[in-house]
Structures are given as C-alpha cells and as structure tokens.
C-alpha cells in the first residue's frame, strides 16, 4: 500500500467520526458526544510536509473546489464555437470574478493572438488614420477601474418563466474585473476626430469580428482599451492581448481581440446591432440601441446549487447587485416572496458600474422561504419584477431581463427556481 493510500484511509475513518460531531452541531450548540479526533489526534498534515514551492508555478484552485468552474447549457446553441457559458456565481464571494471561471462568449471561438502579432487600426473620420502596436498602447496614460460585464442575454431563458436550476445558469453571464488599460478617448485624440464624426465602430480580430457602433459621447467618456484584468494579462478567452471595456453597457459591445476602431457619421447597423441585441416588443416593432444594463440583483446563496445544509439557526444570505447607471444605493431582501422587505448590508467598496456584494444575516426558523432581492441604484431606479417587465415588453424580448428572481427554499434546505404571484 502506498503512503498516500494509507493517509487516505486513516483520514476517512477519522472524518467519519467527525461527521457525527458535525451532525450534532447542525441541531444547535450541544456538547460533542465523543471528542473530535480531528482535534485530539495528530493529523498527517500537522506532522508531515506539504508541497514545496514551485509545485505549481501557476496555481490552480485546490481540488476540493473542482465544482467551481464555468458551465454551459448545451441545448442553447448549435456549436460551442459560437456559444456562451456561465460564471459559477453561486460558489463565489466578494465581488471580483477570477478570470479562469469568468463566463465566456465567443462568436467564432477564442483565438490565440500574440502581442507581437497584435495591431490596432484607427481610421474613418479622423485627421490621421493610425496603426498601433501593443507596445504603443502601453505608452498611453494608464487607468485602473473595476467594472461588471454582463451579457444582454443574461436571464434571457427566463423570459417565459422559471427554467434553469441555479444562479450560475440564470444569472451567470456576468463577471466583474479590475481592468488596467488606457482610455479610448486618448487613442482617438491621437488620430484626431473630424467634426462630422459622431459614432465609433469597434471590431475584433477573430473570424466573427463582432463589430458594434458606439456613440461618440460614450467613446469619449469612460470606455477603456484594456490589457490587464485582475492584475494579470487578459486570458485568451477574455480577449488577450487587448479588449474593449464599455462600462455599464451590454457585454456584446466589449469587443475582444480589438483590432479596429473607426469613426463614422452614423451607426454601421452591423449584424450584432440589428438582427441580434435588439428587443422585439409586443407590437412587432423592436427597440434598438438598448445599451445600458439596468439595475439588477440576485441572491447567490442560498440558491439551487447552494442549498442550506446546516439546518435552522444563523444563516448568511449573500448576493450580488449591479447597475449600468452607476452605484448601487441599496438592496432589499424578502423572505416571503415580496410581501415584506428588509434592507441588506452592502459589504466592501461600492463602485459605480461594478458588482456590489450584499449580505443579510438571519436566524432561520427552518420554515419555507421565498427569497428575493431587489436592487436600487443611485438614480433611484428600483429593480422591477419580471411581470412588470413583461407588462411593457411582452414575452419575445430575450435580452435585458433584469427582473427580480425568486428562490423557493424548502424545509430541508433544498432550493428551487420559481416564480410567484
């Protein structure tokens, strides 16, 4: 028998005993029937060596966290090359999304583009069309800002009613990263915008190119050309080496592998801003240019993938809130499907157009709950119910579903995605 196997066996036996102790804890503060061997016996990890440095030159999460990964819903799209997956928000805390589990959306696959092969062109209605290398971009004044990026289709599968079991699937087309990069306006100024320039068109270097038109006011405001996220280079799937960051606006505009910025006197009306990312209304006409992501929130735990296992008593309800219009001002939580509300605590820094963490600590009596959260942003906008949205937009609207989510927590702690009257 190998040394590791021996270790494994002894640990299983010990932890079996620990389970009994743990089970007792669930019922409240009672004395342990037997002393916990995890405490009374010297454990292997308290006696032997752990891994040396350099065991993993670039570390991955410990194997006990292997469930914390991106997942997709295969029936949503015909090919994973042009598809989306979801951030495991049910298993994350705080506000920053690690790049390695932040949702991906590709229209023609994640391409491998090196810094040396990278070029950015600025042309159209400018005084001097320019070409920049990666190094050129690093010489503009640098900015560091944290923003959420949410796909306009986040929650799109829920327009007709509760469908997917888990915050990862209902709300996981979102991530929140700290970007380091330069301002788009500094790059545009370098080329010089002609007076008739009113729109900026951005496109990527991948086969889809995914072009989008952005009005000049936004382009000259807070849009970033980023090359670092969360302190390290962008990951391939997030647009290495350079992506666009369009704070508060739908993720489709955050063009990855950014290769060209062109100034026009009008919107280009590309495929992604006409046939897609437009909102079909009940009268058969469609809203276009619905760029801003309105205020939204979701309880990430408890949720269908994060049931309550510890029984009644102290329970931490945790969730995320965000608004494309600015800062989150307040989040209310309801335990009874929206009849009564309690203000939750906003934890950590509250940044505009970034994820905000909220917590509500309750003493759970073990009875059923219908959990809801409701965000309010600094403009006074209060997150609506799904029915309020449907009343205006009907059922064919796909994108921009920022309605209130309901989780049905049962007595055994299991959680289901439901809708309520």
């Amino acid at each position, binding site marked *: 028998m*190998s040394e590791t*196997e021996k*270790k494994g066996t002894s*640990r*299983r036996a010990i932890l079996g005993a620990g*389970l009994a102790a743990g089970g007792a804890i669930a019922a409240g503060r009672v004395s342990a029937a037997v002393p916990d061997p995890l405490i009374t016996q010297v454990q292997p990890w308290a006696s032997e060596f752990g891994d040396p440095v350099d065991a993993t030159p670039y570390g991955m999460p410990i*194997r*006990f966290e292997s469930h914390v*990964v991106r997942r997709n819903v295969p029936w949503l799209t*015909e*090919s994973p090359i*042009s598809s989306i997956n979801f951030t495991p928000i049910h298993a994350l805390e705080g506000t920053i999304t690690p790049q390695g589990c932040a949702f991906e959306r590709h229209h023609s696959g994640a391409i491998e583009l090196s810094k040396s092969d990278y070029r950015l*062109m*600025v042309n159209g209605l400018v005084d001097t*069309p*320019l*070409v*920049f290398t990666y190094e*050129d971009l690093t010489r503009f004044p640098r900015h560091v800002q944290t923003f959420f990026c949410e796909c306009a289709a986040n929650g799109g599968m829920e327009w007709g*009613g*509760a469908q*997917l*079991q888990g915050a990862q*699937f209902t709300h996981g087309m979102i991530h929140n990263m700290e970007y380091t990069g330069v301002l788009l306006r500094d790059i545009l100024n*370098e*080329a010089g915008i002609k007076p008739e320039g009113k729109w900026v068109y951005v496109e990527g270097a991948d*086969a889809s*190119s995914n072009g989008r038109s952005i009005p000049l006011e936004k382009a000259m405001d807070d849009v970033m050309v980023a090359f670092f996220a969360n302190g390290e280079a962008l990951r391939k799937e997030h647009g290495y080496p350079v992506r666009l960051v369009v704070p508060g606006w739908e993720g489709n505009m955050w063009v990855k592998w950014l290769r060209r910025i062109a100034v*026009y006197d*009008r919107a*280009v*009306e*590309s495929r992604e801003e006409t*046939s897609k990312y437009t909102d079909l209304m009940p*009268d058969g*006409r*469609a*809203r*276009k*240019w619905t*760029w*801003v992501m309105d205020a939204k929130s979701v309880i990430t*735990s408890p949720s269908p*993938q994060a*049931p309550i*296992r510890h029984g009644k008593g102290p329970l931490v309800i945790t969730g995320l809130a965000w608004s494309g219009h600015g800062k989150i001002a307040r989040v*209310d939580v309801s335990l*009874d499907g929206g009849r*009564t*509300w309690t203000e939750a605590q906003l934890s950590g820094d509250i940044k505009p157009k970034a994820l905000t963490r909220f917590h509500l600590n309750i003493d759970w009596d073990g009875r059923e709950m*219908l959990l809801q959260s409701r965000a*309010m942003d600094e403009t006074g906008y*209060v997150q609506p119910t799904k029915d*309020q949205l449907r009343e205006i937009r009907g059922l064919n609207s796909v994108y921009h579903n920022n309605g209130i989510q309901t989780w049905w927590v049962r007595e055994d702690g299991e959680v*289901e*995605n*439901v*809708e*309520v*009257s």
Partner: protein
Amino acid sequence: MSKSLKLALSLAAVMAASPVWADKLGLGRPAVPEEIEAWDVVVLPDGRGLPEGSGDVSTGEEVFAEKCAMCHGDFAEGIDNWPVLAGGQGTLTDRRPVKTIGSYWPYLSTVWDYIHRSMPFGAAQTVTPDETYAITAFLLYSNGLVDEDFVLSKENFTEIHLPNENGFYPDDRAEVEYPKFRVEPCMTDCKGEVKITKRAADLKVTPTDPDGRPAGTIPDWFEVAQNDTAPEAPADEAQAEPAAEAEATAMAAPDPALVAAGEKVFRKCKACHKVGEGAKNGTGPVLNGVVGRPAAAVDGFKYSNAMKAAAEDGLVWTPENLHEYLAAPKKFIKGTKMSFAGLKKPEDIDAVIAYLSTFGG
C-alpha cells in the same frame, strides 16, 4: 554639480518633455491605404463601402448550396438550431416569432457585410465580392423579395429595401420604463397571499451532476470528506507494463504533428461533426471510429439515400476513400447531404484523416 541639483535638473527635463494630455503623444504610425483597404470592409446602409461587382440569384443558389446550406439549409430554412434566413414575415407578434432577413433585418447592407466578413462559419473572409452579391441576391429571392432573374450589383444595391426597415426605434426605456421604476419601493404588506406560479424543476432542462442535482451544486462537505481519497501516486510496477505496450502501438500511431495539424483543419468540420467522448450526432454524424468503418454506419443519423446506397454497395471509409470524398464530397457521392465544398489541399485532408483516426468507435 551636486547630486541633488542634477536630480532637480533631470526632473525639469522630464516635466518639460511631458505633453499636456490634450496634445498628441506621437504614438502609432500613419496607416497606409493598402492596410485600410484590407481591414476596413464595413458596408453602411447607404451603400458606402460596397466594392464593385454583381451576382445573380441562380449563381447565388449554387454558391449558397456549396458554402452555406450545410448549416442554413438549401432553402435558407436553417438546419437544427442554425439561423433561419428566409420566411417568417408577419410572425413578429407571434409567441414564437421567426426573425429572418425578410421578416426582421432592417438593412440589406448588414446581410452583405456579414456574409462578406464573417461567413461561412469557420472559413470567414473567403467569399468574394461577386459571390457575396450572388448569395445576397439568392437570399432576397428566398424571402420572396425579388424575381429569379434578379441581379444584385453595387449600382442597384440601395434600391432594395427590406420589409422591416422601419421596424426599429431607439431605446426608449428612459421615457417608458424609468419613470415607472424610479419610485420609493414598498417595504411592508406589499401584496396579499403569495403563490408559486412557475417551477423550474418541472421542466428538467438544467444540466445535472451524476447525482441528479443541478450541475455544480456545492458539495456537502461532510459527504465529500467521507468519500475523499487523495490522488494516488502511481505504483512503480503499474508504470512498467503500459510503457512496453505504448512502444508497440507507437509504430502504428499517426504522426503527432499531423494529428495536431488535422485538429486545426477539423475546425471547418466541427460546426456539424462531433468527435471525442460523449460526442453526439449533430447536423452531421458523430465521427468517432469513422476511419476504416463502413459508410452510413452511425446509429440514429439520417443519411441521404445516396450515402445509404453507397454503403449497400460496400463503401468503407478507408483513408483512400475518405481522401477522395473530402476533396470533393458531391463528386464522390452525388446527392450526399454534406454540403461542404471540400478541402482543397491534399495535406489538409491527410491531416484531418490522421486526426480522425485518433478517435476510436
């Protein structure tokens, strides 16, 4: 000169060299016309950006069958979940609207631009301007918007208006929604009895873990601890034997470089064909074990009559037969459903066959 004075002087030099940020930094270099021409392929609704050229409906039908129908169907009706490009007019108020070029898209320029820059899926920027005019003409025809003898060109392009051109209006949430939602929220007695009206569990459309729970459910820590064993270090004897085995099979195994090249080529195929563990039939049959197997042998895939007939005649997918088929599918099997034009380079075909041979049935 004292050290501090030197420092002060050099600082002054740096400050003087710093531009005011409104000024230009002098970064980048001017783009040359050939570069702009290569990358700036945008076509605007008013026709700006269109290159010279033209194409007719029947040419478009041929090009479409060759390059597009594998996903979009011969009549632009869309295969499986791939986009439907024709029909759907009058359905935009239905519960299941069919959004196509004819029913939903506002501008023809978008169609032309998208085909030219992003299609076909997996082989973008391979459609010539004339072919793009032809495909666009065919799509207009498929949507009942032009006659079969129609020729689309740069000259008549802007005369064509799509039916839903006026079906869009700019975001009006600020007027229609925000006043409704910017109100002080209710905190108590906000509604009467609360009833559950819809349940996700009834639908069973969420991916699940092996235990039947929603995929990614956070494990019960005590359960995990009980079942957990640390990854085992391989025992020495266990390592010895497979090594010898590996040596024996290495002779027959395909060249890893060729397999890697084949994996790249296979990107052209994988929109329709799946390989590997858990692969299922898609638009095309699953290709695990295809090399050396009789034709039309995958259970549950609806082959064309032509392919079934070839199988009855004893067609086996030997590397030689695959080579010939992949070079010109429609020539090798007249009437095959696979509307892929074929791989032009023989080395690409060798590579993709080598890659496919790594997937057993």
